[in-house]
């Protein structure tokens, strides 16, 4: 039933190649540009062939933007803080949704989905005023506090489905033996759901990393707190844009995330798309 003729096979592979070219061309071109000297890039029309490829930009970028290391650190620090905070809020809530029946449970769950619809730009004014009133503008907090709220809903949905996979009999047995609910959460649920926690943590980390740009340009003007997506703009000089170094620094910023994600993609995508295959 699933046999293809040779012609069909070629056609399918060609179509997939076209599709993946659209998706991956920017990455390939970013990498290619990062390997070429600037004067080579500044030739019009575009030169497809270069015979002087090197990793020079990857060492020079640290001199062009001396704070680059700091920006990378800031990005990972901010995203880690947001991910940890998100987990702290989400673990008890997801457990509650997975195990208890209470009034307005489904309504609350759907209301959580509605939160996903309001992203940063819509609420930027009150958030800005609030952070200003608390004198949190231009601090790390300004880029941590808002982000957590927008990651909580999806994280609850993800973790809830992991908790539901743990057999309830385990808990009941412990309950009969006199363990309290919080003890059960700590000693039975938490260790058994470690993979789920890791997936949700990674999801929150990637989500937090993606949000950084908006909060950084809106709430922070201090260079020492700037995350990488905003700091990359320093490669744009008054005279020229150092495209090769900018692309090199961009790739340094995304490759670690991509690697982690590729290892965990099966679990994350499964969790996120589970609603699509319910039947």
């Amino acid at each position, binding site marked *: 039933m699933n046999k293809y003729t040779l012609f069909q096979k070629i056609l399918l592979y060609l179509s997939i190649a076209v599709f993946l070219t659209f998706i991956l061309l*920017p990455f390939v071109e970013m990498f290619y540009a990062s390997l070429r000297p600037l004067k080579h890039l500044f030739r019009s029309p*575009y030169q497809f062939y270069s015979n002087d490829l090197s990793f020079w930009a990857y060492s020079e970028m640290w001199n062009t933007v001396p704070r680059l290391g700091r920006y990378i650190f800031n990005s990972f620090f901010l995203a880690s803080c947001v991910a940890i905070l998100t987990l702290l809020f989400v673990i*008890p809530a997801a457990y509650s949704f997975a195990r208890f029946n209470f009034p307005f449970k489904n309504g609350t769950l759907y209301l959580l989905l509605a939160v996903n619809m309001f992203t940063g*730009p819509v609420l930027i004014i009150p*958030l800005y005023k609030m952070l200003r009133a608390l004198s949190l503008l231009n601090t790390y907090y300004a880029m941590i506090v808002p982000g957590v709220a927008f990651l909580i809903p999806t994280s609850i949905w993800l973790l809830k489905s992991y908790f539901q996979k743990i057999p309830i009999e385990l808990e009941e047995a412990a309950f009969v033996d006199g363990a309290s*609910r919080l003890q059960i959460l700590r000693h039975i649920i938490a260790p058994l759901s470690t993979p789920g926690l890791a997936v949700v943590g990674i999801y929150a980390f990637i989500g937090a990393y993606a949000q*950084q740009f908006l909060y950084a340009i809106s709430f922070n003007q201090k260079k020492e707190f700037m995350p*990488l997506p905003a700091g990359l703009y320093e490669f744009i000089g008054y005279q020229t844009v150092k495209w090769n170094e900018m*692309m090199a620094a961009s790739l340094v910023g995304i490759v670690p995330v991509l690697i982690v994600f590729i290892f965990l993609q099966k679990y994350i995508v499964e969790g996120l798309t589970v609603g699509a295959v319910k039947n």
Partner: protein
Amino acid sequence: MITKPKLQAYNSSTFLAYALIAPAAIYILCIVAWPLFETIRLSFTNSSLAGEDYVGTKNFAKMLASTKFNKIIIRTFVWMFFSVLLKLIIGLIGAALLNSHLRGRAAFRVLVMPPWIIPIAIGMLGWLWLYNGYFGIIAGIGMRTGILDGPFGFLAYKQSAFISTIISDVWVGTPMVTLFFLAAMQGVPKDLYEAAYCDGASKWARFYSITLPQITPVIITMALLSAIFTFNSFEIIWILTEGGPRGATTTLIIDTYKQALGNYKFGRGAARAVVVVILLTLFAVFYLSLLSQINRKVANE
């Protein structure tokens, strides 16, 4: 006397259930719900860094009377329509391709994901280079094939900037749509295909009369979801064009942000944000009612 301890146990567990949710709920109330309320309040003031006074519906009257704002609304919907349509079409084709039984399909599936995972802001720097009129690869291909007779700044002209921002938005949104469609296609019961195969249906007929109808609920859901995301899309346009040239890519979100944090006219910005919230709420109500309808249908079957 016997029911009382039971009742207490029940009550205490309901209490515990709420107590466990409380921190997350309170956090969302402070960071999402209260700002939402505050946005509505501010839209009736002339709030700025200097202070605020109640001005009634002046912000709204001024906003709705300006032809510029009406153009922005129309532009937002046109931009959103084409972006969502392209995401759905490309996503559907992509998912069908990835769903075929070919060697390497697992790898192809992973290769689709990168635009979805990386920070949009960084991906857009790559696109900024691709769109470069003198040195970029797209202009280069155009010039070498003779389609363009000279350098062409894709982001420098009204129409081409509009189209370019849509293409970049489609690039960001397609992976998610593709993966959801793929998951839905893989969830279609295999025996349906086997029965159709025995009846002599071709591959195309099987796709058209089994796969498509089976995943229609997911297509509708994704259309709405990606409409919401596209409507909210900020960074793509902000980084590529900042809403230019001469306002050609200024969508509602971009305009809201410019009024709010570009000019620090909080009142006017808030009035625009309220329009965004109203439209998003309509989407949300539509989405949730659709979702519960689909769930009910699934439960009935």
